[in-house]
């Protein structure tokens, strides 16, 4: 097999995220490409065994992995409710491992079954291989003399399941053991029981020779690569690290002002743990203070950053306008979730695009870029900081739940290999005449900040005189300044890469192009591989790459695929009214299903 999709599902307290992460990491170490996606409810602990409390973690591993996969080839269900919720997430020929100890009358009632046999009630196709395992009983047997209390023993059943899955994929468990040793280094008493139950799970598969065959994946190319180091990284962590790298490269202090919000909070978590790197974080009193403290730090000469999700971006609008007006560098990270309002806090969507582009009062252009894989959140966070510092503008970086919580393999860069960042510091020769309206030949104003002698000035959110930098209400001056600010953002196009079409056969001569932006890149590539068409994918949204029109003009059919009702399509139409864009949209709070795109566009043919 080339690749396989494994889905771990259970109660939100069953440790499915940990189990999934461990399995993904040890697969990656063995050289698999991986892409993961956790899917969990908004409730921290919904009532045990109920449909609302089911949490999942999906990993796609093997070769040619662009997405976490549509449907699972292997489903590991820790209870009857999880089985029921996920019955539509499995392939026809999948293997379903299920804890049959969770099939008591009470369990089945909580999961709203009407008969006592979930497998028949769910009408699983005959081609599905069901592997009933009394996971809880086996875990109890494994740990009966461990000294742990019953609750702790039962909680370890996820490790039994992990052991079993390791056997199924013929994965040695040594790496899992060393991960566990690392995870529990502060609670060493838990290491031995976890290792024991993991091994017992593995041996259970081996000894009983379950009525399923082991799955052998073809070795992937990743393992044979050069000296580049790899790790698997989640989008939020990659984002945080991109900022750390950019601050170091630019010689700036990194300052994060943020207010906790799902699904962006892990950025705050990571950066507040990075005092070793000298990162300053303020957990502000609200979203507005989050951005305002960051802007205060920018005013004082730092790399100011704020992180949030859609509702927070709404609250930050006015302060983004101030950053536009004051022409200060600022990175605003929006980890999008389902909206509007509180919406679907833990689900993924691309519905903040137009808010990022236009959601402010006045003519208020900001640079907008988007990451497209968990690992490249590092690169685009780095580039967001670079663009902000070099162009004295707020940059909105769009991520989303899918990228934030998903993981992919990151080729770890060295500082020396990262692109240079030259903050727009004021040249010494201007000290005698400096005012905050002075610009270079690109139209980017110079940055002077408190602490610098000879550059004292007053910055404002009021309109400023184009020459003197002081308050001005002159009508023609205002129009000139509106155009100046727009031109400043537009010229960023000179320093971003040109757009490149992607083709599964590397020929780029197809009639059809799937167009996308942000986190759908993998899904579109996987769909294009099946359809034999091209993908034109965007990371730079405002400004667009210079050759956008030229690239898109090559195709007879352009289909903009996005997880909203057509925001990027609407934007492209305003930019290139002569081109015709069709749309493929899903607004379900879930990533695309590759199969759906393929089906839809095949019929279209």
């Amino acid at each position: 097999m080339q690749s396989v999709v494994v889905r771990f599902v259970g109660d939100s307290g069953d440790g499915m995220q940990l189990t999934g992460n461990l399995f993904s990491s040890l697969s990656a170490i063995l050289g698999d490409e991986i892409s993961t996606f956790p899917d969990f409810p908004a409730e921290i602990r919904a009532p045990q065994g109920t449909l609302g409390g089911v949490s999942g973690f999906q990993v796609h591993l093997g070769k040619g992995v662009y997405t976490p996969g549509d449907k699972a080839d292997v489903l590991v269900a820790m209870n009857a409710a999880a089985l029921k919720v996920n019955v539509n997430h499995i392939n026809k020929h999948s293997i379903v491992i299920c804890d049959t100890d969770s099939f008591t009358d009470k369990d089945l009632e909580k999961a709203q079954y009407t008969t006592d046999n979930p497998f028949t009630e769910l009408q699983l196709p005959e081609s599905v291989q069901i592997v009933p395992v009394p996971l809880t009983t086996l875990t109890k047997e494994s740990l009966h003399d461990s000294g742990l209390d019953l609750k702790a023993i039962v909680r370890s059943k996820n490790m039994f399941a992990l052991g079993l899955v390791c056997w199924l994929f013929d994965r040695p468990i040594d790496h899992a053991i060393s991960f566990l040793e690392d995870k529990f280094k502060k609670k060493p008493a838990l290491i031995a029981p976890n290792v024991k139950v993991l091994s017992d799970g593995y041996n259970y598969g081996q000894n009983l020779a379950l009525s399923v065959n082991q799955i052998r994946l073809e070795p992937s190319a990743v393992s044979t690569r050069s000296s580049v180091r790899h790790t698997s990284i989640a989008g939020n962590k990659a984002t945080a690290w991109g900022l750390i790298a950019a601050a170091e490269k630019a010689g700036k202090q990194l300052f994060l002002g943020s207010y906790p919000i799902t699904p962006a909070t892990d950025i705050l978590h990571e950066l507040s743990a990075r005092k070793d790197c000298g990162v300053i974080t303020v957990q502000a009193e609200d979203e507005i203070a989050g951005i305002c403290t960051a802007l205060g730090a920018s005013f004082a000469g730092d790399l100011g950053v704020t992180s949030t999700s859609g509702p927070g971006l709404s609250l930050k609008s006015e302060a983004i306008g101030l950053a536009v007006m004051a022409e200060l560098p600022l990175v605003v990270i929006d980890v999008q979730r389902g909206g509007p309002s509180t919406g679907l806090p833990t689900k993924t969507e691309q519905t903040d695009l137009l808010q990022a582009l236009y959601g402010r009062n006045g003519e208020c252009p900001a640079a907008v870029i988007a990451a497209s894989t968990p690992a490249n959140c590092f690169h685009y966070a780095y580039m967001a900081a670079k663009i902000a510092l070099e162009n004295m503008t707020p940059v909105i970086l769009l991520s989303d739940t899918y990228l934030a919580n998903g993981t992919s393999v990151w080729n770890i860069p060295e500082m020396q290999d990262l692109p240079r960042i030259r903050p727009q510091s004021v040249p010494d020769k201007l000290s005698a005449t400096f005012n905050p309206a002075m610009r270079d030949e690109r139209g980017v104003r110079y940055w002077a900040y408190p602490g610098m002698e000879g550059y004292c000035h007053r910055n404002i959110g009021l309109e400023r005189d184009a020459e003197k930098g002081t308050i001005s209400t002159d009508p023609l001056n205002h129009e000139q300044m509106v155009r100046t600010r727009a031109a400043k953002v537009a010229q960023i196009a000179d320093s971003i890469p040109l757009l490149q079409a992607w083709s599964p056969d590397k020929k780029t001569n197809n009639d059809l192009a799937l167009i996308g932006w942000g986190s759908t890149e993998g899904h579109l590539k996987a769909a294009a591989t099946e359809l034999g068409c091209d993908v034109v994918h965007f990371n730079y949204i405002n400004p667009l790459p210079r050759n956008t029109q030229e690239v898109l003009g090559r195709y007879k059919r352009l289909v903009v695929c996005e997880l909203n009702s057509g925001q990027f399509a609407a934007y492209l139409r305003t930019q290139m009214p002569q081109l015709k864009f069709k749309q493929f949209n899903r607004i379900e709070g879930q990533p695309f299903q590759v199969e759906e795109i393929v089906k839809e566009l095949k019929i279209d043919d």
Partner: protein
Amino acid sequence: MIDELIIDETMTAQDFKSDQYVRFCPGCGDHAIAAALQKAMAEIGIPPHMTAVISGIGCSSRMPHYLSPYGFNTIHGRGAAIATGVKTSHPELTVWQMTGDGDCLAIGGNHFIHSLRRNIDINICLFNNRIYGLTKGQYSPTSPKGFVSKSSPFGTVERPFIPAELCFGARGTFFARTLDVDMPTTVRCLVEAQRHKGASLVECLVNCVIFNNGTHSYIADREERAERTIVLEHGQPMVFGKNKDKGLALDYNTVIPHLIVVSSADPRVLVHDATTSDPTLHRMLALMGQPDTIEAKTDMEQNGSELPIALGVIRSVSADTYDAAVHRQIEEVQAKTGKRSFDSLTRTLETW
């Protein structure tokens, strides 16, 4: 951090004036505060380039334009949050916040209480004229109940904030009150505010000559001011009056002791201690002569108040500051780990 600052004793008020024409209305109390700020900054001696003056929106928030240091006239209500960012990122800077009763207590109320709670080392000048001036005359969160304005033509039906009470409620460590026409007290409060480490709130009672003229006339009146106010000084007996013949004492004959006016010769006259961490007495002093309804205010203006209105530094308590604590924690972590570069950070990862 103040120990590391270069103090320039040759600075004059002129060094802190900007080249901008001052556009406060003629007769506005803000003119006097601007002059007092320039004097106070000169007395403090921290050079303009090491000073940042942050403001929000409103008449008072125009202040940074008239001062020579770095200034940032931002958006409505957010001055405290932006000042928090400036000071936390760069504790070596001296940071002032200029704000008004609307900017600070209405739209910016949340940032205000949290800056006090955190005890971030900034100096907050709260210009209290009990009215919205720049939007041309609406009531503010400090307008007494019943106040008639353009947005309350039949009188307000809501109770006002008393800034001192809010300050103590938010665990503020420094509170001073001054009056636009009392230049020496204003300068002294501003200098003390800067010397105090932590969030320092200076309530500047200012007159809005256009929309709320005479709101502080009860104490602004030069003839009567000495009888109607007491200027508190740490370590000094609480005496007042033209002839310094009156003093404040606590009457213990009620379940909860209360302040009374006695002869300055009375041995019960209290000595002001601004540094007690318990705010009970500070609160009693700050709440003297603070009528919260129009009726009570008119009554005070016509019939006088038994207790004087307190000016000067009422509370100045030492406590750890947020900005210092943030940087100290980073130093503590780095003392153990060393300052980590990005490359060394990536070496902590499990890689293959």
